C-alpha cells in the first residue's frame, strides 16, 4: 500500500508576531517553528495504517523553505518511510490552489492508495488544500475526520459536525482524508526512532518542477486586529492581581453578592 501524508510547518502560535516589512505576511525571524497541529494527527493515522497493513510505503511531503526539513525529520521519526521536500522560500505567498496543485502534480500517477492531510493549517487556516488535492486527482475525499478505519479496500470515517454531532461516511480507496484534532493520540518520536530517521531518504525538489498554475488570490496586507474597547489589561504581582480581580468582581458583576 502506498500512502502520502502532507504536512506544513507553522510558527508556535504563542509567539510574539510582527508584521514583516512587506506588509503582506508576518516577520519570520525569531519565531519558534513546529508541525501544524492537525498534521500530527494525519501522520499518526498514516503510521497506524501502515502498521495495520504491513507491506506499505509512507511518504511525507512538505512545501517550504529549508527549515521545514526539521519538521519533516520529526515525521520520519514518527514512522514515515521517506520525505519529499519541495523547496520554496516563498511558500507563504502561495495560495491554497497553488499549494494543492503542487501536491497533486507530485502525487499524480504515483499510485497512492491513501492521502492524509490536516483539516487546516494553523497560520493560514484555509481548510482547502486537502479537499483541493483530492479534487485535482479526481479522488473521493472525506474532510474533518475524528475516526478512521480501513478494511476491504474501503475507508470508513466519522466526520465531525457542529455541536458534538458526527456523520458516519465511507468511500472506496484510493481516497484522501483531512484530519481533525482529537482523531488519535499522536506519538512522541523515541530516541532510537530519531536516530533511525537520520538515515531515511529526504529528497528535495525545486518548486519550479511542480508549480504549473497561477495564484487565484493574494494577500493585500496583514495587520493586527483592534482589541475590544475598554478591555482592561492587568499586569504585575500575582497577589495584587488577585486582589484587583476580586475588586472587579465586586464592582462589575453580581457574582460575589
Amino acid at each position, binding site marked *: 500500500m502506498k500512502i502520502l501524508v502532507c504536512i506544513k510547518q507553522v510558527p508556535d502560535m504563542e509567539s510574539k508576531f510582527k508584521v514583516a516589512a512587506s506588509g503582506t505576511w508576518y516577520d519570520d525571524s525569531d519565531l519558534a517553528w513546529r508541525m501544524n497541529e492537525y498534521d500530527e494527527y494525519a501522520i499518526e493515522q498514516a503510521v497506524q495504517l501502515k502498521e495495520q497493513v504491513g507491506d506499505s510505503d509512507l511518504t511525507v511531503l512538505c512545501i517550504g523553505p529549508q527549515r521545514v526539513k526539521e519538521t519533516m525529520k520529526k515525521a520520519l521519526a514518527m514512522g514515515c518511510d521517506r520525505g519529499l521536500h519541495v523547496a520554496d522560500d516563498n511558500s507563504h505567498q502561495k495560495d491554497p490552489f497553488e499549494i494543492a496543485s503542487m501536491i497533486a502534480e507530485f502525487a499524480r500517477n504515483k499510485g497512492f492508495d491513501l492521502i492524509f492531510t490536516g483539516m487546516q493549517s494553523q497560520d493560514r487556516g484555509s481548510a482547502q488544500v486537502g479537499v483541493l488535492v483530492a479534487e485535482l486527482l479526481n479522488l473521493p475525499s472525506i474532510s474533518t475526520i475524528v475516526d478512521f478505519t480501513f478494511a476491504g479496500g474501503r475507508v470508513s470515517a466519522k466526520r465531525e459536525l457542529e455541536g458534538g454531532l458526527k456523520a458516519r*461516511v465511507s468511500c472506496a480507496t484510493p481516497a484522501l482524508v483531512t484530519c481533525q484534532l482529537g482523531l488519535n493520540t499522536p506519538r512522541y518520536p523515541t530516541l532510537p526512532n530519531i536516530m533511525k530517521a537520520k538515515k531515511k531518504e529526504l529528497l528535495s525538489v525545486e518548486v519550479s518542477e511542480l508549480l504549473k498554475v497561477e495564484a487565484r488570490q493574494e494577500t493585500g496586507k496583514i495587520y493586527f486586529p483592534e482589541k475590544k474597547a475598554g478591555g482592561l489589561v492587568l499586569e504585575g504581582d500575582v497577589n495584587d492581581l488577585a486582589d484587583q480581580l476580586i475588586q472587579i468582581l465586586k464592582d462589575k458583576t453580581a457574582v460575589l453578592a
Partner: protein
Amino acid sequence: MKTLLVAEYRDGKLSGSTYELVDFARKLGADSAMFLVGSDSTLPQYDGTLYLADSGKHSEFNPAVHKQLLLDVIAKEEPDMVVFSHSSYGWDLAPRVALALGAAHVSEVVEIVDGVPVVPVCNSKLRREVRVKTAQTVVSLQSGAFGLSSDPVGSPRVGKIDSNAATQVVFGGYEEAEAGGVDLSKAEIIVSAGRGIGKPENLAMVEGLAKALKGEYGASRPVVDSEWADHSRQVGTTGQTVSPKLYVACGISGAIQHLAGMKKSEFVIAINTDKDAPIGEIADVLAVADLKQLVPILTEKLSA
C-alpha cells in the same frame, strides 16, 4: 452584484447560519438567490428564488452530487459570488465548487472592508486582506461574524432541481454526542481550563476556583481531546454554547471555535501569560499571569 447563497440542512432542519448568509448579501447590497438540498416541508423564510433539491433523494451529505447540483444552478444564475457558511458542510463543499469554477475561494471571511474580504491568520492574532484575482469568487463566512440584523421573513419562489451525478462518499447517518454529564448552558458562572494548564493534575486548580465562585468548570478542546476532562465540559462550536454571567478563561488562547461558544458571556476574565492572546479581544479583563500562581491565590482569597 449577484450572489448565490448556499443554505444548509441537517437532520431535517435548516441551519440557523443560513440567515447569516441572507444578511450578508443584504449588507453588501447584492441581489441573491438561494440553493438548498433539503425538503419543501421546512422551507427557509426568504424573499427570493430558492433552488431546491430533495435531501431524501440526494442525501443531506453527498459532496459529489451536491457539487453537481450547485454547479448547474451557478451555470444558470451566473452569480458574481457564491456564499457558504464556513461550517463542516461549507468547508467541505466550497473548495470543490471553487475548483470546478476556476474561482478563488476565500475561507473564513470575518469582514468585508471596501469590498475586500478579511480573514484571520495565526489563531486570529492577525488579520489578512485578500485580493481575489478571478472574476467569480467563492467565500465562506465565519459563523457569527456577520450576525443577524433583522428577523428572517418571506417565502421563497421554489424551483426544483435534480441531478444524476455519481456518489463517491456514502453517508451512513448521524451520531449524537453522548448524553449525560453537565449542562453548562444553564451555568451562571463558568471557569474554564485550556491547554495552558500544562498537565491534567492542574485541572483541580481550575475546578477549585469554579467551586470558590460557586460555578461549574469548563474546558477548551485540547483539554477534552487529551481526555483530561469529559466532552460535556467542552465549550465551543463542537462542544457547548454558554452564556454565563461570568466566564473565566484560564490558559485559553481564544481560538475562534472557542469564542463561538462563550462570547455571549456577560463578563469575561482571562488569565493568560501571553498579553497578545486573542482572548484579549473579547475579555473585559485580561490578567497577564501564570495561572498556576494566580488561580490558587485567587481561590484562597475568595474562600477566606
